[in-house]
């Protein structure tokens, strides 16, 4: 057992679902209530990114930027110089997709506490298709010095993560998904920037998930249990800085690691774990996610299945992986 409080309805078909971005909306309003330095900027997508909640509560601290993502983040940099804590929101495909250099120069190198909120990340954006399904944002943001990168797993955690980045004094990226996502955590579950959490204990394999994929790993772990495999599920909402201690402790115990993300595995979350394990604990590793291809149009749940990212498909992949590869302390 793990001491992380999980939603008791987690494995039910009736599990409560809510878009992760809704948690961001609530969190930003709550942060704005206690800190007057917080301001919000949006590039013509207030409702979709849920920054509208803050806008309605604090219209005098909301700035409409129009469809201009480069200006969105650079104006935010100037506001930060004037002592504000700017939250900027758009679709992740546009911010940080389009304005990465501006983020690099005027926020990361300039070390200003601007918050970049990338909504509609991952393939679960659905019918809008590949142009709007941002898959490269984790890679783009985690290579920037000074940048914190957080991909919350559900709406409750997104609310906590929003409050946390409002207070961390650093450039930060928050990755949000569009679709309703099953809620696995509770109001009492912990969240701290830079911490990973063991949601389910096991000794056969470590399943490391970030963002929406943690839920799918929990489902996979339950399916694996029925086949006699005890999988440990580690939720890693902060991709940077990585909680190396928790991750290494789990992998040292199980001897095998699997990563899952709704993003390109190259240089993404899987890339980050591969770097960590490669240097500190060489371990057989399976990275699940988007493998050097783009998404396409379809219903969100269809796409998750199509790309093999649902719990059942993942369980099969993990089963094969376990059968095929030895644990690190047997093979190395």
């Amino acid at each position, binding site marked *: 057992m793990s001491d992380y409080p999980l939603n008791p309805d987690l494995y039910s078909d009736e599990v409560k679902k809510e878009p992760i971005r809704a948690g961001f909306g609530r969190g930003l309003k709550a942060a704005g209530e206690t800190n007057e330095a917080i301001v919000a900027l949006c590039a013509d997508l207030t409702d979709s990114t849920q920054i509208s909640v803050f806008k309605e509560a604090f219209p005098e601290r909301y700035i409409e930027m129009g469809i*201009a993502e480069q200006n969105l983040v650079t104006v935010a*940099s100037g*506001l930060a110089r004037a002592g*504000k804590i*700017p939250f900027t929101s758009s679709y992740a495909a546009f911010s940080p997709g389009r304005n990465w250099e501006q983020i690099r120069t*005027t926020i990361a190198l300039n070390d200003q506490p601007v918050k970049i909120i990338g909504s509609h990340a991952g393939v679960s954006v659905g019918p809008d298709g590949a142009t709007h399904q941002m898959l490269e944002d984790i890679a783009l943001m985690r290579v920037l010095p000074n940048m914190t990168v957080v991909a919350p797993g559900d709406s409750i955690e997104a609310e906590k993560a929003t409050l946390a980045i409002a207070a961390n004094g650093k450039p930060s990226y928050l990755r949000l998904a569009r679709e309703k996502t099953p809620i696995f955590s509770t109001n009492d579950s912990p969240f701290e920037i830079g911490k990973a959490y063991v949601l389910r204990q096991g000794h056969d394999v470590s399943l490391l998930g970030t963002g929406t994929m943690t839920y799918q790993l929990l489902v996979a772990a339950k399916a694996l249990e029925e086949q006699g495999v005890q999988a440990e599920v580690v939720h890693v909402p902060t991709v940077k800085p990585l909680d190396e201690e928790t991750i290494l402790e789990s992998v040292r115990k199980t001897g095998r690691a699997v990563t899952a993300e709704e993003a390109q595995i190259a240089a993404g979350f899987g890339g980050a774990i591969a770097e960590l394990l490669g240097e500190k604990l060489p371990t057989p590793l399976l990275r699940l996610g988007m493998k050097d291809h783009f998404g396409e149009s379809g219903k969100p749940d269809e796409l998750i299945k199509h790309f093999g990212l649902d719990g059942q498909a993942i369980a099969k992949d993990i089963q094969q992986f376990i059968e095929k590869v030895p644990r690190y302390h047997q093979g190395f």
Partner: protein
Amino acid sequence: MSGQLTIKQLEQKAAEVRRSILIMLEAAGSGHSAGPLDLTDIVTTLYFEIMNLDPKNPEWPERDVFFLSNGHTVPVQYAVMAHRGYFPLEELQTLRKLGSRLQGHPERTKLPGLENTSGPLGCGLSQAAGYAYSLQYLDDAKHRFVYAITGDGELNEGNIWEAAMFAGKYKLSQLIVFVDRNNIQIDGSTEDVMPLEDLHGKWESFGWHVQEIDGHNIESVIDAASMARAITNKPSVIIAHTIPGKGIDFMEYDYRWHGYGKSPNDYTRALKTLRTLNGKITGEHE
């Protein structure tokens, strides 16, 4: 506080700054010449006459702020800041060297007194606009002003026009921008590379108050800034017509000097030229 010098003294100060720029670039062995030299009169006037500031307290909350958008011209800002007392003149020799606070392009976190980090073109104007928005709408600080400089070649960048639209929409009247209209960019004349005219009309149509001045006439610089501060319903742009490489006759008007000299001799020759500017330099020369 500023405003202690006469026009004549400001001109002399600008000549000293030009001399410092050449010495810095010679010591660095790389860097841009034309822009810093043509911006010297404006930046000197801003720091010595126009802006409210305290060199001993760069974070003074009542200060006016300065955003350099075309970061490659930063040698002029460093030189003016040193002459103004932000840091010792000797430190100018460290430009572009390992461990220096004077990075090749300005980095706010390295040197107190810098308001932004810039170099990649087109994003300094937005940062200035963000600061000006804060003063006007969030801080109720109507007495403070944001000054910015952009290059003219830099106006090719889309980010500039996003910022121009934004400042126009919100009527950011505490934002005062100088465009260094020297007509050159790396590949040649601005009008050959990517024409900017009608530049006056462009800014006007974005909702800005537009003035055009001789960027080497210090009185004009002072007057235009006063006029801009008096405009309370729109942002101001001052198109400053300048001579690239101003003050060094063999550099003037030549776009090839956008970059750096080919040999240390170029700078020795340039310093010699500067010394011929009758009576404008009061300091000792080697």
